[in-house]
């Protein structure tokens, strides 16, 4: 950095040797040296303790006994082709996205392909992983690469892929997984028998797609010149932001049911989803409001001078600029929504964390193996959230938001 600014008379910088690098970055003075040594000791002990436990004393049986439980929960095993097909559609679209937006998706796509390949060939001694399941896992990386090739074609545009994602999400969540009553090939499967990662992803994706537009509306409402709309938005946003998510979940899962007519049922998953959407939209609204405030008022005034209507100004001038500014914060909000899906455990839904409680009670021998099971769950969450935040950072860089 400094070198490029230095006068041209200086010799070009030579890449520092390893020793030089060590001296400069780790042992520049006695204080730094002490810090480095302390860090090394800390690292050594942490890693040794964790590795020794994970490789020698941990009992991974609950995780390896029935991995499918973590993935799809109680989903009927005779109908497994449906989540399987969803996975294949998903991987194909991931592949296409990789081809299109290489910079953001590439690490995730490659990681995912490798992970699925490992899953396909991993020698697990369990009858629950059948040959056809392994075949699906093995087909996924192939589809990722196929999708990548297609995504690279110049004819493929971003809007097509986004539309495909939306259509696929609607098809999978409303048709493929729940089934249609009148088609014998797709018998209805109640959401009460969905579970595991399936539920977690459903809640996360559903919550993200639904809460975003509501959040935008609320943010606009909060800046509206209509006093009533404004007050209502403020009331909604501040109330929701003032209470913990568990209370909102609790409200939707138990209190709401008490006020419905006898015998009527709103699906439990839908209730949890509504709670997530409510909760998340209040936070999204505040993030979007930050972006709206950052758009210079001159923009709106200029648009008005051009004769655009208020609606047009908001949709075509102000919002696009505001949203561009807040993309990283919104992705951050989505990550926390994704992690917050674990709270549905408290209202009795078997998401990834809930199903791990069921796994602990699968056999008497498993009851005390919490550490192994929860760590496994933590790793899954970590992978998904990490790639989301990676994407957000790349977006931030390419939009140049951090460098104003």
């Amino acid at each position, binding site marked *: 950095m400094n070198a490029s600014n230095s006068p041209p008379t200086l010799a070009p910088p030579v890449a520092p040797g390893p020793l030089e690098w060590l001296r400069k970055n780790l042992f520049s003075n006695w204080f730094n040296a002490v810090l480095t040594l302390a860090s090394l000791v800390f690292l050594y002990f942490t890693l040794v303790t964790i590795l020794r436990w994970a490789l020698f004393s941990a009992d991974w049986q609950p995780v390896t006994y029935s991995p499918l*439980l973590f993935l799809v929960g109680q989903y009927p095993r005779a109908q497994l082709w449906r989540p399987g097909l969803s996975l294949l559609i998903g991987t194909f679209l991931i592949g296409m996205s990789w081809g299109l937006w290489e910079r953001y998706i590439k690490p995730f796509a490659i990681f995912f392909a490798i992970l699925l390949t490992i899953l396909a060939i991993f020698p697990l001694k369990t009858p629950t992983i059948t040959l056809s399941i392994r075949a699906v896992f093995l087909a996924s990386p192939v589809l990722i690469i196929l999708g990548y090739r297609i995504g690279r074609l110049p004819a493929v545009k971003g809007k097509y892929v986004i539309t495909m994602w939306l259509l696929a999400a609607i098809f999978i969540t409303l048709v493929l997984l729940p089934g249609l009553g009148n088609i014998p090939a797709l018998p209805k499967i109640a959401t009460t028998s969905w579970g595991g990662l399936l539920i977690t992803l459903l809640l996360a994706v559903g919550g993200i797609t639904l809460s975003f537009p*509501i959040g935008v509306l609320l943010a606009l409402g909060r800046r509206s010149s209509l006093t009533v709309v404004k007050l209502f938005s403020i009331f909604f946003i501040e109330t929701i932001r003032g209470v913990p998510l568990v209370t909102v979940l609790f409200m939707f899962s138990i209190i709401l049911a008490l006020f419905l007519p006898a015998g009527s049922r709103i699906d439990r998953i839908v209730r949890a989803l509504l709670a997530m959407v409510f909760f998340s939209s209040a936070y999204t609204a505040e993030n979007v409001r930050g972006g709206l405030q950052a758009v210079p008022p001159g923009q709106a005034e200029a648009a008005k001078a051009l004769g655009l209507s208020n609606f047009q100004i908001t949709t075509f001038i102000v919002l696009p600029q505001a949203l561009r500014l807040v993309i990283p914060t919104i992705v951050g909000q989505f990550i926390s929504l994704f992690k917050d899906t674990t709270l549905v455990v408290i209202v009795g839904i078997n998401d990834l964390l809930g199903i791990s*409680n069921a796994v602990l009670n699968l*056999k008497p021998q498993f009851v*005390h193996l919490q550490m192994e099971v929860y760590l496994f769950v933590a790793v899954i969450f970590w992978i998904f959230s990490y790639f989301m935040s990676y994407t957000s950072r790349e977006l931030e860089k390419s939009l140049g938001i951090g460098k104003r």
Partner: protein
Amino acid sequence: MRKILILIVSLLVISLVAVACASQAPSPEKVVETVVVTVEVPAEQAPVQPQGYGTIANRVRERGKVVCGVHTELLGFGYLDENGRNIGFDVDLCRAVAAAMFGDPEAVELVPITAADRGPVLQTGEVDMVSRNMTWTSKRDAEWGNFTWITFYDGQGFLVHSDSGIKTLQDMDGASICVTTGTTTEKNLATTFADAGLSYEAVTFEETSAVYGAYEEGRCDVATSDKSQLAAVSAGFANPKDHVILDITISKEPLTPAVPSGDDQWFDIVKSVMWGLINAEEYGVTSSNIEEMKSSDNANIRTMLGEEGDWGYSVLGLEPDSLAKAVAAVGNYGELYNHYFGPNGIAFTLPRGLNSLWSEGGMIYAPPIK
């Protein structure tokens, strides 16, 4: 920029739909209407039936499925197998009802519910029955719904580490005790210890696995719960011999499936199925010999299996062989018990004790099917 615009517009459309759906959900008018319209008396019932008779049963028939609130995390009673199938003693009771109604034990929708959900789902009628390790108490009966027939006699006991030297209640003075929250267990514990003038440290968790995990690690000296549960869990510990279930029972825990109140027909249907399972064991009718038994010399057996006479099925709107189908699907009471808790039970082994038939010195007794 175009991309973002398209995205925004499509999301806005979705949002409008979502808002519409969200506001439809707790619709006001619906509440008013349905509460008023629940008066529906099926015409074909000859006897004058009270208001609400048959409402739930008809709903179940229309749906073609019994919606049943169950546990998914309690070994033996309601849990999952490695294929994600809901199994367990309580769950099979739901299947028995489904088999009696529709001849198909799989005509059930099993809703996982938490301990805190049990009251609300009964009060609101969100489920048709709850079979989830639920103790029958007068207060719950008054507030929640109708409790059908006791299917498992349990009592609260104590699990201790063998080397702790605890033998009696008095020995537990000052001990740390692991207990599940939100259950009758927690309250029984408080009352018993207060009455005996003993002190203790309560360590409370939501999840049963957390309770026993903490106990086994040594966080608590004692774990308390229903004795069946203690037996189940201690069998799975790394060293089962290091743990003892004390011979103390501090409460009565009659575990009973319940239905929402308001429909006596549905209440009777579920009760009859429970009675059918118990009577089948008394008469030695099992899922394997049921076809032979249909031509048994015993008229009571023939009646129960629907070969002759009306045991009440016509009023309940059931088939003559409904009980036979229930027994064929899940087995008689004894078979069901042994499947999960017998000497070779798939969950754990628990001597039948109070849950033996009345004729064998136990408490399992049902009105005759005739």
